[in-house]
C-alpha cells in the first residue's frame, strides 16, 4: 500500500468515524444544527462507503461517479445550513444555495458523463462559491465567539476551508489531467477531517486543555471577591467574570435565602431584588438541583417573557451553586442566540457554578466571622457602658444620699437648727443630674427600638437656635450665634432638634478647658439648612470622628476625664438627625477643636411676599452677633 493509499484510507476511516460521532450526538440531542452536522458528514461517509462498495462490485461505472459527486455536492449545502444555525444567513443565500444544488445535481445526473468539462466547471463553481462562502462565515463566527466555542469554531472554519479547497484541487486535477494534484487533495482532506474532528467532536482531553485558561481567568478575576465587603458588588463582578468566561451576553447570580424561600438578585441599578426560589429558569435549576437549558427562554417560561426580552436573553442556561449540602444559589447565563456547542458551555457553566459556590461560601464564612466579632464588640461595649453608667449614676447618688443622711442627723440632734440651704440645693442639683442621666438612658433605649415620637412641624431654625441660646444665657454663658436675616424653615421635631443642639453645645463646653465659648453657625444652602457648633477644645482624634457617634463610644483622649456622661449623647444626636432625613458629622476646627455639623432638609426660602413676617421674626430673634452667612 502506497503512502497515497494510506492517506486515502485514513481519510475514509476518519470521515466515517466522525459521522458516527456526530450521529450519536444528534440522537442524544436532536437540534437543527446537530442534524445538519449529520447531513454534512453523512453525505461524505455515504460517498466513502458507496465508492468502496462500487469499487469492488462495479468498477469504472460512470453512474457511480455521478452518485458520488452528487453526495459530495451535498456538503456545501450542509455547511450553508450550519452557518445559518450558528450565525444566521440571509434567506436569499439559503434559497440560492438550494437552487444551485438542485441545478448542479441535475446537471451531473443528466450529463451522463460526470467528468465532462462543463460539469466539472459547474462543480468547481459550486464548491468554490458556496463552500467558500460557508468557510468564510465559519471564520467570521469564530472571530465573534468566545471561550471554547471560539476554538471549536476556528477548527470548524479550518476544516471547511481545507475541505472545500481539497475538493476544488481534486476537481482541477481531473480537469487539467494532473494526477499529482490528487495527492495534494488527499493531504488537504486529511487536514480537513482532523480539524472537523476537533471542531465537531473534540476528545475530552482537548476540551479540558481548552477550558483551563478560561477557568483560570475566572478564578484570578474572582479570588479577591472573598474579601470584598459589599456583597452586591462581589455578585456583580462574579456575574461579569462568568459571562466573560462563557462568552455569553450576560449572567446573573441568585443568592439563596432559605428562610424566606427566595433567591436574591442584584438588579441593573445595583439593588437587591427578591424572587421566589422557583421563579425563572434559574429557579427551576435551583429547585431541581441540576443544570437546565432553555434554548427558547420565552417559550419555556412565558410567565417572565418580558424579563427575558428586556435582558436580551433568548437562550438561558442555569446551574445550581451548591457546595456539598449547602444550596447557596444559582448561576444563570444568557445569550441572544442559542450556543453553537451547548454541551461545552454547560460543562464550563457547572465548573464556574462550583467555583462560585466556593467563593460565596468563603464570603459567607468571612461575614459570619465578622458578625461574631461585631457581636463581641457590642457585648464589650455594653459591658463598658454598664460600668460607666453605674459610675455616672453613683456619683450624684452619693451626694443625694450623703446630704439626706446629714440633714436627717442634724434634725435628730437639734430639731430647731436651721436648714442648711447649700446642702438642700446640692441634693436638688444632683437629683436633677440623676434624672437627666436616667432620661438619657431611656432616650437611647427608645431610639434603639425606633419608638422616638417625631412631632414634626414647620419651624424657623433661627427660633430653635434662639431658644437653646437663651437657656445657656440663663446659665451665664453668652454664646455667639451667626445666622442669616431670613428665616430658615424646616419641618422638625423642635424639642428633639433643641436636644441635639443642647447636646452638641454641652459637649463643646465639656471639652473646652480655657473658657472659650463655642459658636453656633446657621446658614441656608440650596434646599438644606447647615447648623454647626464650633469649639476650640481638645478636638477629636481623626480616626475616631465616625465612631464617636456610636453608642457608648467615648473618644480615647477624653476617657481619663471623669465627667464624660454615658457616651450616648452623640449617638442620640445622630439618631434624631437621621430620623429627620439629615446628616451629622464632626470635623476639626481650623486652629484646634471640633466642629459638629448638622444638615437638615429645608426647602428654598420663602418668597419676598413674606417680608413682614420675616421682619417680625428678626425682632423675636435674640441674636447679638448677626452676620452674613459665612462662605466657608
Amino acid at each position, binding site marked *: 500500500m502506497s503512502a497515497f493509499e494510506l492517506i486515502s484510507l485514513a481519510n475514509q476511516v476518519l470521515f466515517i468515524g466522525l459521522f458516527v460521532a456526530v450521529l450519536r450526538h444528534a440522537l442524544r440531542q436532536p437540534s437543527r444544527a446537530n442534524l445538519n452536522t449529520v447531513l454534512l458528514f453523512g453525505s461524505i461517509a455515504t460517498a466513502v462507503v458507496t465508492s468502496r462498495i462500487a469499487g469492488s462490485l462495479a468498477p469504472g461505472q460512470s453512474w457511480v461517479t455521478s452518485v458520488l459527486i452528487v453526495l459530495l455536492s451535498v456538503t456545501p449545502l450542509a455547511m450553508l445550513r450550519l452557518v445559518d444555525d450558528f450565525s444566521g444567513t440571509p434567506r436569499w443565500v439559503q434559497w440560492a444555495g438550494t437552487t444551485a444544488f438542485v441545478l448542479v445535481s441535475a446537471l451531473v445526473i443528466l450529463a451522463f458523463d460526470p467528468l465532462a468539462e462543463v460539469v466539472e466547471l459547474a462543480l468547481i463553481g459550486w464548491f468554490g462559491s458556496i463552500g467558500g462562502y460557508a468557510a468564510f462565515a465559519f471564520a467570521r463566527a469564530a472571530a465573534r465567539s468566545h471561550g471554547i466555542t471560539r476554538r471549536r469554531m476556528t477548527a470548524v472554519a479550518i476544516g471547511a476551508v481545507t475541505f472545500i479547497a481539497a475538493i476544488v484541487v481534486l476537481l482541477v486535477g481531473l480537469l487539467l489531467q494532473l494526477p499529482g494534484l490528487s495527492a495534494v487533495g488527499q493531504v488537504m482532506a486529511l487536514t480537513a477531517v482532523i480539524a472537523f474532528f476537533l471542531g465537531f467532536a473534540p476528545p475530552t482531553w482537548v476540551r479540558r486543555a481548552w477550558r483551563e485558561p478560561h477557568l483560570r481567568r475566572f478564578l484570578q478575576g474572582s479570588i479577591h471577591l472573598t474579601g470584598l465587603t459589599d456583597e452586591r458588588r462581589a455578585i456583580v463582578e462574579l456575574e461579569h467574570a462568568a459571562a466573560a468566561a462563557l462568552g455569553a451576553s450576560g449572567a446573573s447570580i441568585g443568592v439563596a435565602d432559605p428562610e424566606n424561600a427566595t433567591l436574591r438578585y442584584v438588579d441593573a441599578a445595583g439593588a437587591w431584588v427578591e424572587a421566589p426560589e422557583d421563579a425563572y429558569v434559574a429557579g427551576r435549576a435551583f429547585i431541581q438541583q441540576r443544570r437546565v437549558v432553555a434554548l427558547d427562554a420565552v417559550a419555556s417560561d412565558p410567565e417572565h417573557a418580558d424579563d427575558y426580552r428586556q435582558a436580551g436573553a433568548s437562550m438561558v442556561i442555569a446551574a445550581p451553586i451548591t457546595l456539598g449540602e449547602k444550596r447557596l444559589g444559582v448561576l444563570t447565563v444568557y445569550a441572544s442566540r442559542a450556543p453553537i456547542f451547548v454541551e461545552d458551555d454547560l460543562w464550563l457553566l457547572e465548573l464556574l457554578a462550583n467555583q462560585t459556590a466556593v467563593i460565596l461560601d468563603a464570603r459567607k464564612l468571612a461575614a459570619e466571622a465578622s458578625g461574631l466579632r461585631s457581636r463581641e464588640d457590642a457585648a464589650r461595649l455594653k459591658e463598658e457602658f454598664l460600668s460607666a453608667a453605674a*459610675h455616672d449614676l*453613683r*456619683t450624684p*447618688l452619693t451626694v443625694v444620699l*450623703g*446630704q439626706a443622711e*446629714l440633714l436627717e442627723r442634724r434634725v435628730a440632734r437639734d430639731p430647731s437648727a436651721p436648714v*442648711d440651704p447649700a446642702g438642700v440645693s446640692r441634693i436638688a442639683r444632683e437629683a436633677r443630674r440623676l434624672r437627666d442621666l436616667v432620661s438619657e438612658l431611656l432616650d437611647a433605649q427608645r431610639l434603639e427600638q425606633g419608638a422616638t415620637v417625631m412631632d414634626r412641624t414647620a419651624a424657623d431654625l433661627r427660633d430653635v437656635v434662639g431658644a437653646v441660646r437663651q437657656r445657656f444665657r440663663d446659665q451665664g454663658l453668652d454664646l455667639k450665634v451667626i445666622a442669616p436675616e431670613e428665616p430658615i424653615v424646616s419641618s422638625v421635631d423642635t424639642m428633639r432638634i433643641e436636644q441635639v443642639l443642647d447636646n452638641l453645645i454641652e459637649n463643646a463646653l465639656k471639652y473646652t478647658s480655657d473658657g472659650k465659648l463655642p459658636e453656633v453657625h446657621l446658614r441656608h444652602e440650596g434646599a438644606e439648612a447647615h447648623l454647626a457648633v464650633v469649639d476650640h477644645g481638645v478636638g477629636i482624634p481623626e480616626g475616631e470622628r465616625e465612631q464617636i457617634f456610636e453608642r457608648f463610644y467615648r473618644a480615647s483622649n477624653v476617657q481619663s476625664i471623669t465627667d464624660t456622661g454615658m457616651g450616648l449623647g452623640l449617638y442620640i444626636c445622630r439618631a434624631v438627625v437621621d430620623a429627620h432625613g439629615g446628616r451629622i458629622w464632626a470635623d476639626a476646627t481650623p486652629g484646634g477643636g471640633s466642629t459638629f455639623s448638622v444638615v437638615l432638609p429645608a426647602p428654598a426660602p420663602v418668597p419676598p411676599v413674606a417680608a413682614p413676617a420675616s421682619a417680625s421674626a428678626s425682632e423675636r430673634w435674640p441674636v447679638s452677633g448677626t452676620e452674613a452667612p459665612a462662605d466657608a
Partner: protein
Amino acid sequence: MPRTCVLVVDDEPDIRATVAAMLEIEGYAVAEAANGAEGLLAVDEHAPDVILLDMRMPVLDGWGFAAEMRRLGHRTPIVVMTAARDAAHWASEISASAYVSKPFGFDDLISAVERVTPTA
C-alpha cells in the same frame, strides 16, 4: 488635743462638700483638693491624718497621687472612695488602708475614717 484632720481629694465639688459636711458634723477638721496634684499641695499644707481619695480624676489621678505620696515618704492612711466596681481591687493596688464604694452612707464613711485614723 487637736482635731483629726481629713483631706478629701475628689474632682466633684458636690461630693467634696457633702463628705466635708459629714466629717465636720462628726468633729473632724477637713481640707479639700480637686485632684491629685492639688492633693499633694494640701498634704504639705495641712499634714492630714487621713486621706479620702477618689481614683478617677483629671490632672493627677488616685494612682498617681498614691505613688507620689509613697515616693515622698508619706505614710498617711488612705481611704479609697470610688464609684467603680473594682473599689477593693484598686484599693489594694495602691496599698490603701480601706475603701468606701459610692454611693456610701454616713455611717460607712465615718466608720471607715475612724478605722484607719492612727491612734496617737
